[in-house]
């Protein structure tokens, strides 16, 4: 046979195989990058049993996709379900997931640890005795549901909707719960965002009208991070793999981080800035580019709202662009490299190289800030504002290799039975009028607000969230949660024990990533996808022909999922439909019956995900079957610069263009399969809706900002009391060197180790073995000065409200004058009432210290009774625990620091560090909650309230996105004050 004949034979075999929808070349293979089982074999996959070696024993699996629930990256997972035992054998990556592309960090496979955790919560529990006493009785789901539903129904009947609150950590889902709360008419959505990313969101939102960045690292020439994305930043796995791709293409990596993070070690330029100086450095880079005209003048002219700036700030409405350029240069003239060097501690030479590199990126500059410096400093929202300034100068916005806004790289489908109603009452506890520009709830101020303004939460859900441990000033939370005058009924919905659940009235067991339904979509590259989380054993059993109608049938114990729980609870709140909320979870196909999760998601996949029905049909599947089989679907790729798209002709009807170039039309909003936008604008006075902006004679979609353009100058900030901060500006941090006493240092706590994630990873044994403690990073020079002789020595770290005792790690990986301590460590469980020597109450045995909580009037203390250690359980590995040190809970000693603009808690602490005194023991914590309340007041003084500064008598700018947006009328301040200029 000739070579050509052989070639033809192979080609024919390949075509025949692929025509059957199968993969011809096997994985792993370099030929087609098929490092995973071919998907057509997922339903029946054979592997050799490693434990049977050297025997060749075949194991048959059915591979079921789901979505990781361990952080907000929501990477794809593939559960290997043993067909004989119907147990999950392992989790690997899902190659069909467009964001993670089959790759996972350690937390994904460790889902198996969480599922088999011997200490997990398996049944609904109800408190016996006092809150926090630690005594529980098992109750049925029916009993818990009826009790909780009764309370909520009564609150609704008595028009106390705002007394129902849902406090969420990382949501890990799109739209289900917010739709439900809207349907309930409850303005009680309470997110953790103000202890997390609110600051960066405010900065990005001020520019783009969209609050999150979606950097295209893979195609960038320069990647500029104010974060640690190669190890732990937001969406770190999907982003890290793309940063590596960019690096392979030759991209330069610049990292601003005071600490020598793993990310910094990969950088071409590591800039260990003095904490809080980051905006000064970024503005100096901008100024350098402006002075040299090394920016994209055409883009700035076309897409910045520079005319608005010239009109309102300079009083020159007719000024040409060249005059704006001069004004811009003048405005930033003070930000020289020399100035930045003084503020940041980075040399002028290094900064000059960085400026040259950034300017050389052209439009291929990808940048990111999420927490890090943004979430750490007073005025930290200017980090993102100053960072995106560089993108805006270069035109590196929503083009290949640049930074996109989240909304264009994310797809949230419209659900069945949209809520169609909004809360009518404003929740003062979550949205106090002192913070009109905060984009998220002032959740962590609740104890203080309730303490002096009253307020009562009748039914308080904490959902996979642990404010006692995660938030600053946790003892104030303990006081609030144990006060029946403040919290009527606390329902902790959690898969695993946590410090907040100890103070609950009900603890309801919720599923991990492989035990629940959710739908997610995240901005991780220039594309849009959806990812489906599902109870994998439910799907596995259904593949075997079983009928499963309730996720509890397949989950361990009586562990449930939230979707079915909320549907059931809604029906019990409104059993006869009288309250008008039951209908939102009523079957479309079977009126009068409850909607099922299959119907809910089936409808979405049928109606709201373009392209999915067609692709599924090609494989002979329904869209729901497709998603249950493959777990993810890419809706669009290469979205590109939406702002440059022309507004379609059929959306232009009786058009009016205002003086600022904004275009309004009478054409109705076209029907869309997507959920509604979160940024909204009022119609113009004659009822036309805004459709775009006129740019150089064309009507384009533009940006969802008040001006329709990128907002260099923010009218919103200027009009709501912050004119001096309306353009990218350096606001001095509360830990600026000049704010510190001579013996104070900065404590940096905004980083974590990549294998742990807040509360959720508590009892993941593989992760705990890798990382379980959080020593204090301290430079040798400081250690010497303070008498800390070696790594492991105890030090006492004193904050403004108390202190904690921790071990030192003497390292040159931190700037002198700064100490650092990772969060995500220092878990604890209270000692049992009997003081039994085997430790504390229920909890995660692998990672929690047993502690005694003591209160003496305003002073609280936490004494560590014992650390981690081996113990007997259903998992023999718990007898092999070799570590005792599980870290120190530093957040208890942090007072609240609400930024007056963003509302973000500013995490950096000014501390005094000294060698531990003779009575100090590892893990000791002492806090004065009255001092904490005084610090709250001191920061409250910085605010500029809506009452004094609202330009239109409303509580906050209507256009800015808000979770569970109430009615327009609810935005009105009770007694509209006269507008206050400036």
């Amino acid at each position, binding site marked *: 046979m000739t070579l050509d004949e052989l070639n033809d*034979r192979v080609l024919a*075999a390949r075509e025949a195989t692929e025509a059957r929808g199968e993969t011809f*070349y096997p994985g792993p*293979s370099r030929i087609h990058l098929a490092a995973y089982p071919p998907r057509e074999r997922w339903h029946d996959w054979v592997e050799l049993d490693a434990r049977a070696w050297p025997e060749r024993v075949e194991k048959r699996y059915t591979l079921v996709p789901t979505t990781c629930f361990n952080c907000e990256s929501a990477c794809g997972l593939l559960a290997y379900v043993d067909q004989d035992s119907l147990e999950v054998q392992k989790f690997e990556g899902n190659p069909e997931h467009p964001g993670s592309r089959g790759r996972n960090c350690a937390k994904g496979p460790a889902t198996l640890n969480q599922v088999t955790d011997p200490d997990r919560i398996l049944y609904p529990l109800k408190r016996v005795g006092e809150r926090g006493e630690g005594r529980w009785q098992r109750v049925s789901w029916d009993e818990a549901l009826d009790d909780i539903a009764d309370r909520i129904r009564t609150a609704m009947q008595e028009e106390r909707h705002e007394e129902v609150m849902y406090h969420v950590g990382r949501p890990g889902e799109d739209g289900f719960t917010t739709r439900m709360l809207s349907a309930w008419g409850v303005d009680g959505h309470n997110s953790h965002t103000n202890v997390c990313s609110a600051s960066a969101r405010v900065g990005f939102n001020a520019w783009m009208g969209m609050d999150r960045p979606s950097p295209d690292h893979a195609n960038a020439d320069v990647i500029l991070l104010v974060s640690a994305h190669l190890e732990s930043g937001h969406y770190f796995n999907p982003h890290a793999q793309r940063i590596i791709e960019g690096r392979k293409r030759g991209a330069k990596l610049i990292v601003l981080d005071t600490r020598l993070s793993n990310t910094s070690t990969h950088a071409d330029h590591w800039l260990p800035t003095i904490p809080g100086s980051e905006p000064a450095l970024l503005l100096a880079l901008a100024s350098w580019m402006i002075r040299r005209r090394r920016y994209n003048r055409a883009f700035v002219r076309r897409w910045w709202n520079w005319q608005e700036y010239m009109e309102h700030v300079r009083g020159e409405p007719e000024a040409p662009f060249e005059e704006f350029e001069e004004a811009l240069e003048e405005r930033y003239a003070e930000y020289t490299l020399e100035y930045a060097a003084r503020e940041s501690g980075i040399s002028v030479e290094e900064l000059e190289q960085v400026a040259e590199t950034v300017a050389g990126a052209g439009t291929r500059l990808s940048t990111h800030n999420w927490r890090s410096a943004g979430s750490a400093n007073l005025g930290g929202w200017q980090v993102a504002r100053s960072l995106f300034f560089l993108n805006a100068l270069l035109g590196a916005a929503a083009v290949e290799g640049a930074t996109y806004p989240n909304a264009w790289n994310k797809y949230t489908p419209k659900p069945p039975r949209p809520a169609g109603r909004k809360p009518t009452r404003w929740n003062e506890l979550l949205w106090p009028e002192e913070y009109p520009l905060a984009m998220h709830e002032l959740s962590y101020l609740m104890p203080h607000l309730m303490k002096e303004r009253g307020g009562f939460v009748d039914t308080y859900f904490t959902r996979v969230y642990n404010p006692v441990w995660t938030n600053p000033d946790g003892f104030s939370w303990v006081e609030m949660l144990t006060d029946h005058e403040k919290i009527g009924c606390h329902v902790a919905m959690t898969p695993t024990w946590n410090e907040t659940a100890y103070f609950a009235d009900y603890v309801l067991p919720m599923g991990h990533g492989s035990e629940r339904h959710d739908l997610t979509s995240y901005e991780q590259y220039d594309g849009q996808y959806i990812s489906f989380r599902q109870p994998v054993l439910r799907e596995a059993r259904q593949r075997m022909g079983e009928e499963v109608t309730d996720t509890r049938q397949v989950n361990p114990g009586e562990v449930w999922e939230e979707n079915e729980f909320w549907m059931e609870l809604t029906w019990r709140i409104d059993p006869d439909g009288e309250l008008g909320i039951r209908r939102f979870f009523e079957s479309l196909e079977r009126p009068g019956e409850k909607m099922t999760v299959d119907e809910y998601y089936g409808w979405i996949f049928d109606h709201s995900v373009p392209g999915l029905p067609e692709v599924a049909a090609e494989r002979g599947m329904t869209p729901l079957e497709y998603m249950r089989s493959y777990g993810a679907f890419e809706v669009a790729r290469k979205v590109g610069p939406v702002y440059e798209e022309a507004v379609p002709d059929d959306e232009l009807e009786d058009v009016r263009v205002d003086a600022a170039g904004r275009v309004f039309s009478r054409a109705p909003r076209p029907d869309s399969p997507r959920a509604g936008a979160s940024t909204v604008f009022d119609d113009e006075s004659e009822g036309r809706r805004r459709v775009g902006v006129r740019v150089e004679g064309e009507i384009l979609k533009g940006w969802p900002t008040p001006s329709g353009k990128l907002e260099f100058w923010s009218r919103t900030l200027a009009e709501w009391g912050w004119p001096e901060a309306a353009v990218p500006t350096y606001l001095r941090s509360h830990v600026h060197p000049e704010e510190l006493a001579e013996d104070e240092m900065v404590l940096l706590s905004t980083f974590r180790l990549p294998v742990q994630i807040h509360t959720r990873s508590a009892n993941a044994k593989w992760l705990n073995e890798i990382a379980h403690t959080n020593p204090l990073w301290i430079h040798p020079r400081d250690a010497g000065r303070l008498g800390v002789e070696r790594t492991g020595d105890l030090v006492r770290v004193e904050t403004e409200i108390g202190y904690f005792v921790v071990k030192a790690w003497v390292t040159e990986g931190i700037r002198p004058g700064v100490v650092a301590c990772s969060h995500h460590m220092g878990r604890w469980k209270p000692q049992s009432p009997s003081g039994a020597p085997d430790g504390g109450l229920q909890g995660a045995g692998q990672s929690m210290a047993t502690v005694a909580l003591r209160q003496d009037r305003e002073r609280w203390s936490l004494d560590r009774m014992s650390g981690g250690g081996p113990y007997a359980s259903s998992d023999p590995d718990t007898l092999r625990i070799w570590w005792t040190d599980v870290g120190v809970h530093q957040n208890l000693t942090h007072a609240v620091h609400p930024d007056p603009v963003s509302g973000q808690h500013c995490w950096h602490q000014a501390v005094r560090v000294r060698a531990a005194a003779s009575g100090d023991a590892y893990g000791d914590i002492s806090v004065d909650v009255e001092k904490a309340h005084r610090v709250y007041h001191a920061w409250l003084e910085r605010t500029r309230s809506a009452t004094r500064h609202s330009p239109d008598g409303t509580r906050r700018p209507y256009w800015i996105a808000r979770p569970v947006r109430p009615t327009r009328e609810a935005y009105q301040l009770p007694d509209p004050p006269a507008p206050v200029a400036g």
Partner: protein
Amino acid sequence: MAAPPAELLRALAVLAEPASPAHEGLARALDLPAPPEGSGWADLFLFQLHPYASVHLGPEGMLGGEVRERIAGFWRAVGRTPPPEADHLSALLGLHAALRDEAAGHREAGEEAVAELVERSAAALLHEHLLPWLPPFLDRVEALGTPHQAAWAGLLRATLAAGPGAGPSEAPVHLRRAPELPDPRAEGGTEFAAHLLAPVRTGVLVTRHDLAVVARGLGLGLRAGERRYALDHLLGLDPSGTLEALAELARDRAESYRRWPESLERPRRFWVSRAERTAGLLQELAAEAQTVRSDPEAPSPS
């Protein structure tokens, strides 16, 4: 321009990957004997012959380095993201097949000029990054592999030999400028054993199997460990005998290279020349070592 059949190359590329059940079907389609199990693959490609260009063309005879970077640059130049092991044989054959498919696509779309450019890229890949090292590598696979692997190597050689076309008039610059085996009498002997294991310097692929044969011939034991460690040990125990045996090996290889077809003229010239030079140098060193054995005061070659 003549070129190796793309799908055939792709199938042959897959067969250089770790064993999988699908290999059986591919082997049948190609009329090859049944493939070995996983250990057969590991014996050959993990312990004897490493299917990476960098091992065969790098001055240290090791994975990675400048050769891999150069090949990664080629991937980028043709608009593709280099995979983690850009110089692995399977990746290179797969890339070649992909370029051929791409060219065919352009041709179908009537984009003749673009198709021609992509064809040239595919040819450049063959001449620059595959043919410079594959012929001696495939020789050894035929000699050391299972019947399946030997037949695979023969088929791959035939496929490549059928297609390279005229190609450039000279061997690639990196091959022409590849450093030679240094004379330890002039350059010092510290790295001599390491250099002996760099094929591009010596023209000889010295495998673990070859070292075992040498040791057996000399009546010596082969130390368990990496090849350099084992070779150092042999040179220490019996320098002249070891050098003599390696010289003989190089002569044999030069002889076998001469039998390559005319289409492999340029690599043949290079490999024959290197192997002959190595044989000559080692022979001289062996003779001197023999003298040293009778004169313990004289300096050692290694």
